[in-house]
């Protein structure tokens, strides 16, 4: 999705899709557990974030982390580097429960409910000072016109 960097603009998502050969990818997510890798699946039915909801993600940089939703309606000015900023609305904010929930390189991680259903909540895209921000997953799916197959 193109991002509008103009001053009065409003963005809701920072996301993209790619094509894959179904037989060359797997549905499982991966995380590191006591030195080796373990796999898990997530739900396919999105759920709306609420304040206090405990969520998790497995990201490239910080791996498996959990956090608590502190805001479900944030308007933000996000730094894209090179002097470029973009305005986002209707974002969720998360604070990590044991250290930072994410850091650079974790963008694109799916954020899901920290329970046995692991329902999709948001798509991780930004952060600062120990607070992580995500696009609401319903907005991501609508923007890309895709359905989750998990």
């Amino acid at each position: 999705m193109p991002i509008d960097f103009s001053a009065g603009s409003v963005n809701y998502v920072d996301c993209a899709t790619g094509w894959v050969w179904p037989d060359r990818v797997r549905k499982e997510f991966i995380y590191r557990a006591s030195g080796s890798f373990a796999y898990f699946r997530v739900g396919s039915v999105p759920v709306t974030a609420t304040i206090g909801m405990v969520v998790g993600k497995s990201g490239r940089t910080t791996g498996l982390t959990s956090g608590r939703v502190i805001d479900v309606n944030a308007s933000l000015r996000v730094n894209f580097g090179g002097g470029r900023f973009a305005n986002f609305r209707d974002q969720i904010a998360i604070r990590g429960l044991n250290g930072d929930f994410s850091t650079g390189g974790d963008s694109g991680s799916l954020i899901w409910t920290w329970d046995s259903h692991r329902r999709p909540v948001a798509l991780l895209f930004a952060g600062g000072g120990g607070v992580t921000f995500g696009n609401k997953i319903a907005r991501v799916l609508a923007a890309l016109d895709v359905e989750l197959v998990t």
Partner: protein
Amino acid sequence: MMEPSPFASPDPNAPEMGPVKYRADEVDPSRETAEAALLAIEGVRGVGEGRDAIGGPAWIAYVLDQSVAARLPARVAGRPVIAEVTGEIDVLRR
């Protein structure tokens, strides 16, 4: 029986299709007031809605540093303002 294609266009005559009535009451005027007031303060990088220390509704101001947090008003549009020091909010590409 064949499964319907997931790529089929939606039925334009289905009951949930058609124009959606504009409902002005969904726009919260106090949110707009708080957002305008807080984003006007230098060093505020975002505004949201969270909970204060005792669980009541509060505005969250995402700020560059503690000096900005110290300049925030205690209340705006009937709610307390709490600060989250995020620094610059960066995309987490790398």
